[in-house]
């Protein structure tokens, strides 16, 4: 990559993440994206025409905001001449927005990109089932009064049963496993107990609360007063799903959610359903400096990898292996690792897989394990279990958190990686930027 320009995350900002159906329940994705973009533009002083293109990652695009990226760009006051497109790679959509920008820059197709990850899981719809859809079809096509009456009498109460987009979206259609069940597979494969999972989950909350209280998150979050707020509601200044004083004992009381009664995954040790948006400026170092920005981190390498869909939680291991090889570094060189906490057992399974010789031999084509990941370096500010996982936004969120952590914790290299429904992993290696 010697002739390649140094590509950097030049600036970034995110909204506080809010439990779905909570603070942002009357929000729409376009407004969330526009709000975070406007604030980022104001704070950086960037001119609206600074961007070659806008790329947004989103899993469940609102049906009335097709090509969300374009909607956001225009609502944020960017010029009409700036093109925009939306990408989807499930839980990594926000990261895909960034790697798409990196690829474009490497290909010489522009040098400044606005990358977003946006998700409003609150707005996921309930759908009519097939029987109801057919019923409405019959009704619409019947012309005579008799035909209409006939169509009406074909109504059945079962038509009221909705299809829930949230549940169906989190289910892998190639194996009919909901994401939680893939995590249960990992718990069995790697012999992880309920206590392991709950202990990890409690720690995530503890770390997130500490980071919030220390002002660490204030560097990445803009306080935000949502649309349609109730009379008593106030602006949100921090992620609202962090539980202060979350304990293993309290978590132990929860029932398994996906596999009753023997499963280990509960709502307490899995990530929450959340709304959020993150915006990042991806550009070359040279251009960042010309724009008067102080880059947050250099993007050293990135990789995408595929794996068994029924064990999609191991995706980070596969992707990290590729990503580190590309950069020519080992796991021991890496400081903080943001490994998205889809499920506590999934994170712990990845950790075991990193350290396992047999896993490395069987799946990664290496003779030895990649290395140990200490719990201290893993998600030092807590993760999705505490602060939520707005699916399309998280990829961008962990990149921002990871980039800021280099400076905050005085590290050289940082890794952001996540598992992806459908059996994939994505990883981006960040390096501290010597500006």
């Amino acid at each position, binding site marked *: 990559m010697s002739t390649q320009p140094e590509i950097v995350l030049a600036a970034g900002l995110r909204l506080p993440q809010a439990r779905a159906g909570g603070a942002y329940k009357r929000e729409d994705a376009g407004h969330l994206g526009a*709000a975070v973009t406007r*604030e980022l533009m*104001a704070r950086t*002083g960037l001119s609206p025409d600074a961007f070659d293109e806008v790329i947004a990652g989103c899993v469940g695009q609102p049906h009335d905001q097709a090509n969300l990226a374009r909607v956001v760009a225009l609502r944020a006051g960017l010029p009409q001449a700036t093109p925009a497109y939306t990408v989807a790679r499930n839980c990594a959509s926000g990261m895909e927005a960034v790697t798409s920008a990196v690829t474009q820059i490497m290909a010489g197709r522009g040098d400044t990109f606005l990358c977003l990850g946006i998700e409003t899981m609150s707005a996921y719809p309930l759908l009519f089932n097939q029987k109801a859809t057919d019923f409405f079809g019959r009704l619409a096509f019947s012309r005579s009064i008799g035909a209409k009456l006939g169509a009406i009498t074909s109504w059945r109460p079962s038509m009221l049963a909705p299809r829930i987009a949230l549940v169906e979206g989190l289910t892998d259609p190639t194996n009919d496993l909901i994401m939680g069940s893939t995590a249960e597979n990992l718990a069995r494969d790697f012999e992880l107990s309920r206590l392991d999972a709950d202990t990890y989950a409690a720690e995530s909350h503890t770390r997130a609360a500490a980071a919030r209280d220390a002002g660490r998150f204030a560097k990445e979050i803009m306080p935000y*007063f949502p*649309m349609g707020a109730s009379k008593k*509601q106030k602006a949100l200044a921090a992620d609202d799903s962090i539980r202060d004083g979350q304990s293993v004992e309290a978590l132990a009381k929860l029932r398994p959610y996906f596999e009753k009664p023997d499963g280990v995954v509960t709502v307490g040790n899995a990530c929450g359903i959340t709304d959020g948006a993150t915006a990042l400026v991806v550009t070359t170092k040279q251009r960042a400096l010309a724009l008067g920005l102080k880059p947050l981190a250099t993007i050293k390498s990135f990789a995408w990898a595929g794996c068994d869909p029924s064990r999609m939680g191991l995706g980070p291991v596969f992707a990290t292996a590729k990503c580190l090889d590309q950069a020519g570094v080992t796991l021991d060189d890496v400081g903080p690792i943001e490994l998205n906490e889809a499920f506590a057992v999934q994170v712990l399974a990845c950790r075991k897989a990193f350290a396992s010789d047999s896993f490395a031999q069987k799946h990664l084509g290496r003779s030895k394990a990649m290395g140990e990941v200490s719990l201290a370096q893993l998600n030092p500010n807590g993760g999705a279990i505490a602060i939520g996982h707005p699916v399309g936004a998280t990829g961008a969120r962990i990149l921002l958190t990871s980039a800021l952590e280099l400076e905050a914790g005085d590290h050289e290299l940082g890794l952001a990686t996540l598992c992806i429904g459908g059996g994939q992993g994505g990883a981006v290696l960040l390096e501290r930027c010597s500006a």
Partner: protein
Amino acid sequence: MSAQEHNPLEGVPVPANAPAHGESIRIERPEPGLMRLVLDPPHRSLAVFDVPMLLDLDAAIAEVENEGSLRGLVISGADPLTFAGGADLEAIGKLKTPEAVGRYIAFGQALFQRIHKLSRSGGGTVMVVAAIGGPVPGGACEIALACDRIVMTRDDRSRIGLPEVKLGIVPGWGGCARLPRRVGVPAALGVIVPGKLVRARAALKMGMIDRVTPAEYLERVGADIAMGREKCARKTRGKWSWLIDKNPIALAVIERQAAKGILKATGGHYPAASIALDLVLRSPRQYLADALTEERRVNSTLATNPITKALIGIYEMTEFAKGLAKDHQGNKVEPFGRGAVVGAGIMGGAIASLMAERGMSMRLRDLSRDALDDAVRDHQGEVNKKRKRRHLKNHKANAAIDRLEVTTGPEGFGKCEIVIEAVAEVMKVKHIVLGEFAELLGPNAILATNTSSLSVAEMAQSLPNPGRVVGMHFFNPVRRMPLVEIVRGPQTTDETVRRIARLALDLGKTPVVVRDVPGFLVNRLLAPYLDEAVCLLEDGASPERVDRAMKQFGMPMGPFELLDEVGLDIAGHAGESMHRGYGERMTANKFLKPLVRSGDLGKKTGAGIFRYESGKKGRPKAAGLNPRLPSPNSTRAVSLSHNDIVDRLILAMVNEGARAMEERVAASPSELDLATIFGMGFAPFRGGLLAYADSRGPAKIVERLKRIATSPGVVSRPGGPERFDSAPLLLEVAEAGGTFHAS
């Protein structure tokens, strides 16, 4: 014979820059059998039916009448969004006698009748089409109504209507006669009585126009309809015409309802609305010619009465105010793209909200996050209200909400071209805030203050580039009050004033430029008015009675209602600062101090002069006097007549107005009047404060002031005689036997 017969428009003023004969209307023959009359006078950007236009129209119609084998006629404006602006208001304002008005109206009526006679619906052989767009008010609407079909440009700027009633007259060129025939009595009343302009889509729906088309197709569609290539059916009233428009019983019901509404809306001060109601109700049962005669008869007297003169004067002043935003070449100055407001209180929040709604990208700062939350909530509430009422389209409402950013910190203001500060009214705080923002925004950004009491000149001191410091005084509530005082400091540049005027106009406000004196203009004039009311209260006058007297005079609310609205504490502070600024004559009455001390501050606390209960939708509603109101110190004011009360309050204000005029606080008496009408709701039909003084006669006012100054309630009071001591300018005008407006 006599010269009069050769000039049927005798006595009607001709514009100074009138063009030669034949230049106001272009006659085109685009194809065989079709003629087009294009109203495109060289001396105006928007055609007006002034004398040259009427004469040209006369000649043009004669040419049409003599044209053989004519199938279609199209009447249109210079472009699809420009048609005409109606009658020549400037001329009407100058018409002295009912006879001259009659001549002007008769001439126009005859012209439009000739068009009607040519047309198919008038029994002629020509298909006459009005192809119009943009604003089509008054006479412009009436010429269209005389045509067979009306085609209008589909655009937000396209509006058609008959606003005459707003000017104290009634539609006189066939509007009252023809519109009810076209759309029926109820719909016609809905247009004529409130004097509103209707959007193209709504006009189509009610049958006022017949076809809507994009600007690019207007000419083609007009020609197609005129030549019969396109069938364009006209909505007919059908049976409704017999059931309602010509049914005396139905009409009697409508009349009762409408009359009630009119009385409520006008307080009986504007006769034109009731007269229009009468004309419209009778028109469908009359011959057209008779209906036209009545329009003419009625308008001849209406147009020359002082109410119409006053209302036309106001209209002309608002037009003048629009010119404040133009530079020497007559071009509008650039609008602001991005702006900032500091202070998210009620005023600051509302200003930022309004600016965001009107298209500016806004950044609002306050140190308190709670204040910002409230500002955003209110902004979204206002916008969503408009969305719900369909005053804002969905996407525009979204954009309006998107455009407001809020912050507690100093970052993100670099690209703002203007900041309006609305922080606490403390000079030191203002200095700090403006100093900080002068740095954040750079040397060319405009620094505006929404202060209502502090000196702009003092604020500009020590700021770099003081020429860009200016006062932009909004009134509370910001969204409802139509006036903005642009306070010009001694160093403020013309360019700064122009840009603020542009901003005010873009926000839908009327700007008035005032000098930097304590209270500026409106609050300065209100001070003696409100204080005098309190003096009457102290002397035993009943607050309800004073309020009633002032409302009958034409004020939108009585002085005590106003005090409760403003807040007794705020009014008290204002009174004291006026006293400091102007000395003895502004001595503030202390009678209400005990109320302020006990926390009864007005509507906001549930009790002030009056007691408030929660009424409809939880809004406070006055329910009798506040029992804690101090008892009067004397009974001197108990026996005052209505007129005495009005004179005590209004003449105190007139006298102060004369002083303000002398100090050139406003550039002209007209601008001062405009400020009183839009800033305090001073009875519009009286034309404003000084116009009222002129109509009373300055000499008589001087006399009256002398008597008031020596009356028992005033003479012994500190500052009383000084307040009613005639201002030098008033004396001067009175001695010369002239008026404020004429001098």
